[in-house]
């Protein structure tokens, strides 16, 4: 850890613009014995190559452009395979092009995009593949929990229960008590997030779950680690996601509708123990608002005395957002963005992230849900006031279903989020989600009451990819090239 100097807070630069031109994924399942990971990777790549209106004559012509491949795969012990990247690269027929494996826990997908985008921005490559996957079904949940817990410090943390959820829940409990006051209203907000994300997954053929749940279902589900219940937690999944990133010249050669891509990254200590009380950078709209600055001083003062964002927020997410907003000209995320895909590993960490990325000030994350902002259409099921129900929200979140409803195939997750943003910005949500053929491809039947989740005229989207208790976080922002903010 460091005291911030000018070098630390320097705003990242792309030496030239980076574009995203195509996206593809497999479906996501808890157990997937029907297919090897290599097969799922080829299927994701085929979707990327063949279903994104690319101006090439088939897969082989597209492959002639690919110069580098970045592969995100986190847990070698889950897959029981070192250098799985080389296996996948071969199955995709991309040898002898350079490739690299990237791993940063739950943020692996985001980090993979970070590296791929920087390969383009620097001029090293004109076209790079970013693909991520995870295979978590070779062991039972009991062993799986141990494997995940080895991503904590094995000498000082893992021995304490071999359960990562517990280490997360320490932060959740602190947030719950300090800012949530342990109140039923706060508990209800958490439940609404689980309901919202599962509801979105219901209309997503790629998603692992398709059951609609209610607030009561969430609050009656078994406690995993108080205050977190079964439905508050993300899924464990098998699956693959991929995107293609390009220079401007290649982007427009391949596509009529490429999107601009910006990716940044932050970090914080692996052990929560080491989260010392330190300053955080303010986001542009916070900097400009004396009320918020005064409020933050109060949080640090004797009245609240909170070591924010040590235990109740994720400094890594704050850093990633700070870099990203300043890099691409976002002032106020709620005003300037049209949709977000957040890393809802748990409902409560989702709320904490709202604050880190400035959707609400620290300590006031629940307002993002309760204001109706987080919805495409505020539900008319009695959980919101008559005034809000049925109205469009300002900044819908996790229309994919997120990690709670769609998937958490670790290395794929951060890329899945960006696939969804990309199709939304291209106005192609319907093609990938609301066609019978897409559901049948995955052995499913399209629900009769599928909800149209296309955000009208979506111009800018953001995705947060997040590891562990916040050791690595990336922020990806995708924009329509005709809708870059004027700084």
């Amino acid at each position: 850890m460091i005291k911030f100097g000018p070098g630390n807070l320097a705003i990242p630069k792309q030496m030239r613009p980076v574009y995203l031109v195509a996206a593809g994924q497999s479906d996501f399942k808890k157990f997937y014995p029907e297919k090897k990971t290599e097969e799922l990777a080829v299927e994701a790549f085929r979707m990327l190559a063949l279903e994104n209106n690319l101006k090439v004559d088939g897969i082989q012509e597209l492959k002639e452009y690919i110069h580098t491949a970045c592969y995100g795969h986190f847990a070698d012990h889950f897959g029981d395979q070192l250098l799985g990247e080389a296996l996948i690269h071969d199955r995709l027929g991309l040898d002898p092009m350079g490739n690299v494996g990237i791993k940063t826990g739950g943020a692996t997908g985001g980090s993979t995009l970070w590296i791929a985008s920087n390969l383009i921005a620097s001029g090293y490559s004109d076209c790079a593949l970013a693909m991520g996957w995870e295979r978590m079904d070779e062991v039972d949940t009991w062993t799986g929990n141990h494997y995940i817990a080895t991503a904590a410090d094995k000498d000082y943390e893992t021995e304490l229960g071999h359960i990562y959820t517990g280490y997360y829940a320490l932060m959740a409990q602190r947030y719950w008590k300090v800012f949530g006051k342990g109140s039923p209203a706060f508990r209800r907000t958490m439940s609404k997030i689980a309901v919202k994300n599962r509801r979105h997954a219901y209309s997503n053929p790629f998603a692992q779950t398709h059951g609609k749940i209610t607030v009561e279902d969430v609050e009656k589900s078994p406690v995993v680690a108080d205050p977190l219940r079964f439905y508050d937690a993300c899924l464990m999944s098998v699956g693959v996601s991929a995107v293609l990133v390009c220079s401007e010249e290649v982007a427009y050669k391949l596509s009529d509708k490429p999107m601009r891509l910006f990716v940044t990254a932050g970090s914080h200590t692996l052990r929560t123990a080491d989260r010392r009380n330190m300053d955080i950078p303010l986001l542009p709209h916070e900097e400009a608002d004396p009320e918020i600055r005064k409020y933050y001083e109060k949080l640090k003062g004797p009245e609240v005395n909170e070591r924010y964002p040590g235990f109740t927020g994720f400094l890594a997410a704050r850093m990633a957002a700070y870099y990203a907003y300043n890099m691409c000209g976002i002032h106020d995320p709620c005003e300037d963005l049209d949709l977000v895909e957040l890393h809802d590993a748990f409902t409560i960490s989702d709320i904490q992230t709202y604050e880190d990325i400035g959707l609400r000030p620290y300590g006031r994350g629940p307002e993002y849900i309760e204001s109706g902002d987080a919805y495409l259409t505020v539900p008319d099921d009695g959980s919101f006031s008559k005034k809000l129900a049925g109205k469009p929200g300002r900044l819908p979140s996790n229309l994919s279903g997120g990690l709670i409803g769609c998937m958490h195939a670790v290395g794929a997750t951060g890329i899945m989020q960006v696939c969804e943003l990309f199709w939304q910005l291209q106005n192609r949500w319907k093609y990938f989600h609301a066609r019978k053929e897409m559901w049948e491809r995955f052995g499913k039947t399209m629900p009769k009451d599928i909800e149209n989740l296309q955000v009208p005229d979506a111009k800018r989207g953001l995705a947060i990819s997040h590891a562990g208790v916040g050791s690595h976080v990336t922020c990806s922002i995708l924009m329509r090239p005709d809708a870059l903010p004027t700084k």
Partner: protein
Amino acid sequence: MAKHDYDFSNLNPTATVLRKLDPIVIEKPRAPIHIHTYGGESPFFRGLTEGKLLATRCVNKKCKPAGKEGHVFLPPRVYCPDCLERTEWIDVTERARKTARIHTHITVAHPGAFNRVPIPCELISVEIEGVSTIIMSQLRGAKPEIGMPIEPVFETAHPTFTILDLAWVPRKA
């Protein structure tokens, strides 16, 4: 939760077991032992077995600490994370007895494989005056609450030589 047709109860390390024919699914047993060192952090774990809580502190006068609560590390660090100079060991047992409090807590009801702590386990993060970090540990014999004064206890009779040799109980008045 999705139903599946796997049964993971057979952990015989030598057997090759066919689980399914279409597609072919087999068992691949694993039972490795890792030989692991605590290296320069060994005094901390030795200290626990002797009833001592040892931390490290940066003594570099030129060091600019990143945190606001001083410069004492627990878990210990061989090198200061700010200036990367070697730290020195200090005994914080008494300080912990007098000032330790629960910063946050959680009950672990469903542990992962290889767990050795008695379940349910009360997981806690411990703040100690003058220590800049908040070590994770376990509470025994009480329901934890944020702010609860606690004191350390040590497994000196049958040490495990792991972090489990340290636990906490409510502080006696």
